């Protein structure tokens, strides 16, 4: 009886650790999107149109549902090759059936995955550091960003597991934090909850002048989804799925809170809406985890890349 209990406890603990690991490893990318997504859609000084703000929030909610949840979390994560994910694993699974064209697709996919890996660290770190411009709008962020990127690459050599253990708790705090401040902000304008209705998204895309072109910015909220799949082998499918439930809630709260601020304020300013809803007292401490939160620097070492055809 006693032993049985111990084993049970052990399993639940492993699972918790796994979930934490997943949070640290695969969600860093998607967790920094709230920093810049809405910033890309509202220019400094722009008077906020409620139709646009709610429509965009609605689009974000449904993009995270269709693209991230349905496509990646539910469907794509099942396509693992002995537990490993990513475009090359997918290619391995289908190559014996389709031949030449699958190769070209996989190669293109691999090339753009590398290209993503080149641009993701700069945008994540830069958008985090730009939060500091609240205190000094003339601050030159470029050297700081470069220093942090170099630092991230150096610690990445420690290995994925160690980084996950280290970043897991940090990211957990990060997501709780963005969810918390989002929730606080939503209280000030609960009408943003209406955006769950996809009708607002539809209205933005079809009726609002130029509304369709906002999709380019809206897309930024789901950019980390591909990383979930590539890094699946490090953490396991179900750990990703379980942590996603919590992470999605916090992300939606963050976007909702930012929209509430935009509606209340009536006009966008220089800073990202994300930074506007952070209470003064905890402002600086929040920039630091934001800049470190990002860790997905490159697709994992995959020897098949080097040995193709050996």
């Amino acid at each position, binding site marked *: 009886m006693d032993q049985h209990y111990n084993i049970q406890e052990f399993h639940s603990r492993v699972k918790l650790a796994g979930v934490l690991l997943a949070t640290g490893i695969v969600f860093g990318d998607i967790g920094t999107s709230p920093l*810049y997504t809405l910033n890309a859609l509202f220019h400094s000084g722009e008077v906020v149109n409620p139709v646009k703000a709610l429509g965009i929030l609605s689009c974000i909610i449904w993009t995270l549902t269709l693209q991230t949840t349905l*496509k990646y979390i539910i469907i794509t994560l099942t396509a693992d090759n002995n537990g490993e994910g990513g475009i090359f694993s997918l290619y391995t699974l289908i190559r014996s059936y389709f031949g030449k064209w699958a190769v070209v697709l996989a190669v293109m*996919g691999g090339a753009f995955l590398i290209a993503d890996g080149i641009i993701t660290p700069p945008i994540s770190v830069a958008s985090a550091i730009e939060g500091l411009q609240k205190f000094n709008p003339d601050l030159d962020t470029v050297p700081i960003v470069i220093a942090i990127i170099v630092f991230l690459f150096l610690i990445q050599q420690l290995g994925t597991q160690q980084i996950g253990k280290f970043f897991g708790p940090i990211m957990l705090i990060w997501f709780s934090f963005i969810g918390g401040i989002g929730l606080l902000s939503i209280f000030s304008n609960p009408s943003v909850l209406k955006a769950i209705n996809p009708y607002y998204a539809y209205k933005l895309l079809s009726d609002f002048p130029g509304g*369709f072109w906002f999709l380019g910015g809206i897309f930024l909220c789901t950019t980390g989804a591909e990383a979930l799949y590539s890094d699946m082998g490090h953490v396991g499918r179900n750990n990703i799925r379980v942590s996603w439930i919590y992470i999605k809630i916090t992300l939606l709260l963050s976007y909702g809170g930012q929209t509430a601020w935009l509606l209340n304020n009536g006009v966008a300013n220089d800073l990202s809406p994300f930074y506007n809803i952070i209470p003064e007292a905890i402002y600086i401490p929040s920039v630091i985890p934001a800049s470190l939160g990002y860790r997905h620097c490159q697709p994992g070492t995959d*020897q098949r890349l080097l040995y193709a055809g050996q």
Partner: protein
Amino acid sequence: MVACILMVLHFRESKNMEAAFGLSVTLTMLITTFLITLYLKIRKVPLIAIVLITSLFLAVEMSFLIANLQKLHEGGWIMLVVGGLLTGLMLIWYYGKTSQDKLIARTQLSPLVLQKLKDLSTNSKIRNHATNLIYLTSSDSPDTIENRVLDSIFQAPAKRADIYWFLHVKVTDEPYTLQYEASALAINDVYHVVLHIGFRIEPKVDLFFRKIAMELMAKGELSYEKSEERKYDTDDFGDYRFVVANSFLSYDNNLPYWRNFLIKSYYNLKLIGVKEDVNFGLDASNVIWERYPLVFAKADQITLVRI
């Protein structure tokens, strides 16, 4: 890392990167959608479900793509160039590698060949080249070997070694496999080894080889003769050399323009790419480099006239 820093220097602020980032990720996701469709097809998911899923995601992603293409001039083009270049390089690599592999001729390791190897191995009139001579081969079966390996051994001056190893490294589709097969083609003279390495494992072939040799010795499947050369050496199995062969484009070739371009690009890539010894984790002190010419298409008959 260097590329990341260049990006920071070029764009400077996150809002300038958004267009490039969005475009690049949309394209990756679109490709994943195509591959997932093919995957669902082989998993025998009902056609109607596949069509529904695919058209839903294609519609969503195509909208994103169109919206992102609008911002091409805001920096999106950079990612297209980077992605296109990488695709081009990888396809050239793939093409070159496959056409090169098609040309590799193999022979049967017949009893005659093995006898020749045994003979050479014990012929004390020839200076010893190395105690262990390891050829990296693309042949995963113990019955065949590339012609160039035999040429390398037998062509004068012949390379005598106590033991010849034909080592094939097989990268498996599982992430963390680490296994080997070993068969003695001629006991204490010729061995064929297949190393199965998972694609996430760093291939430290040098280290793995020593481990395999030790294990074979411990099991009594392998022993070294006490020769004069090895009298003073306290090492268990003496020295070992990996022979790494690289092909190059022979001047004998006469290729149509496009193939010539692709294959030349492939060889140029090879020059700047990761070297095989680094690739396989071979210590530089244990590597012998060999180069051999490859003829993809023979030049026409030449008329060279004596006057």
